[in-house]
C-alpha cells in the first residue's frame, strides 16, 4: 500500500496525522527510490488440540511477502544444479507433500537417494527434521536437500547470483525483509515462513477432538483410536502423533543400503538403525511407508509390527516386552486401526491453493 492509498483512508479530523505523514514522506523517499511497500503479517494460530509451538515465530514472523517468496523458492527448479529439481519435485501437495509412488526419490542426474521423502505439515511443532535428525531447526532443514549432491546439488553462490539478476526475486527479498538483503539467511527464513504456514489441522479426527461440526467418528474408528492409544501412542504421541524421538523399530536391514540411521549423524553406537518417529497425519496419502519406503500399504506396516520385528542391540525396548518381539494386534484390530488412521486425512490442507504451485 503506497502513501496515497493510506492518505485516502484518512478523514478530515485526522488532518494532523495527514500533515505529519506529509513531513515523513520525503524522509522515506530519500531512503529509496522505489515505492515503499508495507509488508503484511500473516495470522498464525495454534489449533487447540496441538502441542506447544516449537518454531520461534517471533524471530521470523510469517508475512505475506515472506510467504510468497518462500513459496516461489519451494517450487523453483533453478535452485538445483540442473535447473529442474525443485523442493516441490519430491514434495507433492496432494500426497501431503511426499513423493507419491517413490520408495526413495531421485534428484539431479537421476541419482537415487536412500530415504523416503517425508511430508511437510505442522513443521512449526516439530523439534527434529529428516529421518535421522540431521536438522533440529526448521530454518536449516532445506540446506540438506538443497546442497546434497544426489538431491538438488545446489550452489549457494550461484543461487544468490540468480536472485540478484532476477527482478522478481530482487523485489520480493526487498519487500519481505526489513534489511532487504539477498542472502542465504533471508532465503532460509522465507522458506521457513512458507513451511510454518503449512498446517494440517482440519481432519475429521481434529474436529472430533475439538467437538466441532463434522467431527463424527464411526464405532470402528473410535475402537481403532482406543487400540491406537493403548498400543501405538507411546511413540506416536500427541495429536501430531510423534514424540520426536529416534527409535529402532525392528525393520530388517537392507544389505544393499545398510542405512545406519541416526548413527550416521552421531557416530554413537547407541544410535545404530534409529530413525525418527514420523507423524501419522494424512498417512492414507503418504504411501509408501518407513524411512526407505519399503511398505506399500498400511496393512503391511501393521503386519511388520505384529509379525516381523527383528531383534538387534538397539531395538526399541517397547517392541521387546517380556521377551516377546513386536506388538500383539489381532486381524480385527488392524482393520479398526486402519479405519482410525484414515480419519487423519485432511482434505482442506491437501487442496489448499495457498500452498499450491501456480
Amino acid at each position, binding site marked *: 500500500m503506497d502513501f*496515497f492509498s493510506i492518505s485516502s483512508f484518512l478523514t478530515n479530523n485526522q488532518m494532523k496525522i495527514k500533515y505529519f505523514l*506529509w*513531513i515523513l*514522506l*520525503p524522509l522515506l*523517499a*530519500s531512503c529509496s527510490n522505489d515505492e515503499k511497500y508495507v509488508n503484511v503479517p500473516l495470522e498464525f494460530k495454534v489449533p487447540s488440540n496441538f502441542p506447544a509451538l516449537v*518454531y*520461534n515465530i517471533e*524471530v*521470523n514472523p510469517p508475512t505475506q511477502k515472506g510467504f510468497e517468496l518462500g513459496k516461489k523458492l519451494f517450487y523453483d527448479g533453478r535452485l538445483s544444479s540442473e535447473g529442474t529439481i525443485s523442493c516441490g519435485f519430491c514434495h507433492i501437495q496432494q500426497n501431503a507433500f511426499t513423493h507419491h509412488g517413490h520408495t526413495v526419490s531421485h534428484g539431479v542426474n537421476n541419482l537415487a537417494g536412500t530415504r523416503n521423502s517425508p511430508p511437510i505439515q505442522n513443521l512449526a511443532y516439530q523439534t527434529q527434521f529428516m529421518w535421522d*535428525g*540431521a*536438522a*533440529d*531447526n*526448521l*530454518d*536449516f*532443514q532445506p*540446506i*540438506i536437500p538443497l*546442497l*546434497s*549432491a544426489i538431491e538438488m546439488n545446489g*550452489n*549457494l*553462490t550461484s543461487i*544468490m547470483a540468480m536472485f540478484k539478476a532476477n527482478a522478481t526475486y530482487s523485489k520480493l527479498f526487498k519487500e519481505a525483509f526489513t534489511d532487504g*538483503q539477498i*542472502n*542465504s*539467511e*533471508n532465503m*532460509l*527464513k522465507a522458506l*521457513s515462513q512458507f513451511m510454518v504456514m503449512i498446517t494440517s489441522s482440519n481432519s475429521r479426527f481434529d474436529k472430533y477432538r475439538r467437538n466441532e461440526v463434522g467431527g463424527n467418528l464411526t464405532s470402528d474408528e473410535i475402537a481403532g483410536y482406543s487400540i491406537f492409544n493403548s498400543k501405538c501412542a507411546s511413540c506416536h504421541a500427541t495429536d501430531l502423533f510423534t514424540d520426536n524421538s529416534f527409535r529402532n523399530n525392528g525393520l530388517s536391514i537392507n544389505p544393499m543400503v545398510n542405512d545406519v540411521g*541416526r548413527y*550416521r*549423524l*552421531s*557416530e*554413537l553406537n547407541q544410535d545404530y538403525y534409529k530413525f525418527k518417529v514420523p507423524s501419522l497425519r494424512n498417512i492414507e496419502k503418504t504411501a509408501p511407508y518407513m524411512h526407505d519406503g519399503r511398505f506399500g500399504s498400511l496393512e503391511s506396516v501393521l503386519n511388520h509390527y505384529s509379525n516381523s520385528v527383528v531383534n538387534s542391540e538397539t531395538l526399541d525396548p517397547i517392541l521387546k516386552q517380556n521377551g516377546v518381539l513386536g506388538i500383539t494386534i489381532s486381524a480385527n484390530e488392524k482393520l479398526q486401526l486402519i479405519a482410525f488412521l484414515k480419519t487423519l486425512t485432511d482434505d482442506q490442507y491437501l487442496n489448499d491453493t495457498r500452498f499450491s504451485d501456480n
Partner: protein
Amino acid sequence: MCQKNHNKSNNLRKLKMKNIIKNTIAILAVAITFASCSTSDETISGIGSLKIEFENGFAGNALVLGSATLPTSNSEVLKISNVKYIISNIELTNEDGTTFTYPKSESYFIVDEETPASLLLNLTNIPAGNYTKVKFGIGVDESQFSMGATGQGDLWTRAQAAGMTWSWASGYKFLAFEGTFSSATCTDVSYMIHTGKTGANYNYTTTTLDLPTTALVRTTITPQIHLSTDLSQIIDGTNKINLSSKNGMGMGVMIMGGTDLPLITSNLPQMFSVEHVHNDPN
C-alpha cells in the same frame, strides 16, 4: 504529484543540511575548546580498527602443506593438505576490565590456509582503548543455532564456497583438518577430521588469550595481533588421538562425530597462542 514531492523533499533536505552544518560547527567549537585544555593526558576516544593474523604451524615449525611434519607423541607423521576453521564471537577486554564484543553476525570468519587473505581478520568499528585480552570461538555457538537462520547473513553461502558445510547434516564444519599420515603400521593413509555440531552436541569451544603487549586501538593506530596456531594440538594436545588405531577398514581415518569429536574439540583452545602485537600507526 511526484515532482511536487521531490521539490518539497529537496527543500526539506536543504533545511536539514543547514541545521546539520550549524550543529557540527557548534560541536567542533566545543570539542576544540576542550581539547586545548588537556594536551598532556591522552584522551582515548573515537573508533578504530584491529587486525588479527593467524599463522598456522605444527609443533613449532611453520606449516608447509603436503610436507611431512614432526612425529606426534604417537609417532605419526602427517602430511597436511587442508586446514580451515571458523572463528567467531570475538571479544576484546580493555585494561579497565570492560569488554567489547564484536557484532555477532559480523564475527564469522572462515580462516583457510590456502587463501592468504583469509588469514588476516580486519575488525572495524572498535572503540579506541587499551586492550589486554582477546577471546574468540571456534565454530558456531548454541545461541546462534537456536536463532535459526536469523543473524547468519551469508555465512551458509560462504561456508559452502569454502567446503565448510556438512554433506549429511545441516551444519557447518567448525574445523577441517585433512591430509595423510604415516606410522609404523600405516603409510600415507588419508585422514579427515571435521568438527561441528552433531545432533545435540554442539562441539563449540572458545579460547581466551592474554596479549603480551597491550593493543592500543586508536583512530590513528590499528594494532595487529599475530597468533601462532599449533595444529599438532588437534590430535596431540591434552587428548591424544591415535590415527593408526582408527584405520580399521584400511579405508583411511574419518573423524566427524562419535566419542573422539568432544576430545578433539577440547584440544582446540590450546592450538592458539599470541606471538606478538604490533601497534602500528595507520
